């Protein structure tokens, strides 16, 4: 009896401490801090971060952890860091799709936590959707699901809000430029050009004062860089 009153609390104490330490290590905060503080990332460091982030997401699939995973598996690497593509893990593109799709489709209600303080400013639903939409289409494209990527992007462009687009346009521009410049398929080139025109028209219609001549002047709301190598 005396032994039991000693052993049970000891076991509970040890288990609770271990759980607390694991929870803390797996939490996004440390991962985020780690990412910020690592100015020179190495493959081993990246692999470790991904492992912990995915563990955290499996443990608790909240917005914060999912966002962390989506940030670690970003499809922009296929466009802007082509030299790294060969060294990426085999399942990189699939995970890009998995996390960016989960984030893209996440119910905006789930962005909030207990105290309802949004981690971003503006309209969380629109900002997060726009941030991750491009990540999702590009990931789909690089897993070989080109038709699905195109149809999803067309749906997105029909609905997107230019104000939010302007803050997150880099990947979208890069993607369309990539499709236009790197592919030999004429249909793909045409598709990229038509998408670019649709986006441009929407942005110019939303900010006519910034584009008095309908051109692409290099100002604060510029479409600069959104050119196709024609």
């Amino acid at each position, binding site marked *: 009896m005396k032994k039991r009153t000693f052993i049970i609390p000891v076991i509970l104490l040890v288990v609770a401490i271990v759980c607390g330490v694991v929870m803390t290590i797996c939490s996004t*905060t440390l991962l985020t801090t780690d990412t910020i503080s690592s100015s020179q990332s190495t493959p081993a460091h990246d692999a470790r971060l991904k492992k912990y982030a995915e563990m955290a997401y499996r443990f608790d699939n909240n917005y*914060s952890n999912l966002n962390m995973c989506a940030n670690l598996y970003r499809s922009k690497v296929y466009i802007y860091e082509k030299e790294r593509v060969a060294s990426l893990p085999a399942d990189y593109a699939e995970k890009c799709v998995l996390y960016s799709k989960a984030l893209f489709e996440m119910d905006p209600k789930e962005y909030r936590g207990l105290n*309802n303080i949004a981690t971003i400013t503006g309209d969380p639903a629109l900002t997060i959707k726009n941030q991750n939409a491009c990540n999702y289409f590009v990931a789909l494209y690089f897993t070989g699901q080109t038709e699905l990527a195109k149809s999803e992007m067309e749906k997105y462009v029909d609905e997107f809000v230019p104000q939010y687009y302007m803050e997150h346009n880099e990947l979208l521009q890069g993607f369309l430029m990539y499709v236009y410049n790197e592919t030999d398929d004429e249909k793909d080139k045409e598709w990229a050009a038509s998408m670019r025109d649709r986006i441009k028209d929407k942005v110019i219609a939303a900010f006519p004062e910034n584009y008095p001549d309908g051109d692409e002047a290099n100002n604060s709301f510029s479409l600069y860089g959104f050119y196709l190598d024609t």
Partner: protein
Amino acid sequence: MNLGTAVKFRFSQLKNITIFYYVIILFIQLGKCIALALYNDFTNSISDSYIFMASAVMLFVCGVMSFKPTFKMMLQNGYSRQDVHNSFLCFLPVTVLYAVADTLISQLQLCVAYGITQKTSSFKAILFNDKYCGVFSTLFEYDGQYNLVVEILLHIMISVLIYTTAFTLGNMVSALFYRLNIGGRIAVSVGVGAIILLSSIPDSSFYLPYSVLVFNSFIYGTSGEYGLTAYLNHFVAATIILIVISVSASHLLVRKATVKR
């Protein structure tokens, strides 16, 4: 069995403190209502989080009192340390009463504040209105998409967890100080203070101090760098872990007698 008597003694002690505490809280709330009637500004009446914070501190102090002056008298009357510890465990459900009372007081104050500022006595208008004034709406800055009853129950559940954590942590501190000699008490007090102080210094890049980040990641499961957002399941897990640690540790601490002269 002295457990029953220990529970009775603890009840009478806690009852007096609780009555005194809630009288003060009700006076403060009354003062707020009078101020509202004078200044007629509803927005300043919304924040009632102080009640929950005050109750958590109150219960922590009650926990700390576990092995304080009355203990020696209890020992003289034949109570054992284990009786005192077990009677404390019997009192854990008291946190539910505190949580329900605090939620009711907070919501009642909102009803009165809304009635005063909007000059209405309509029950319906007070209970169900827009997102800033609805009595049931301000618990989590209600945005019209959640079930009201679930919100209230959730709020009570979270309060219970916070209160129980504070109560048990207080008891653990009390048990720890009971076991330590004077030198140990000073070493623990100064050491904990020094660690908190040193780890609270932000680094050169002006991010949050590392200790705060670790604390946030344990309690809330998320970053505190871009605004603190707590996630329910992580928060529940963290508080349960703290409760288990403090109850187990205090049980182990009071297990052996310390000879005191």
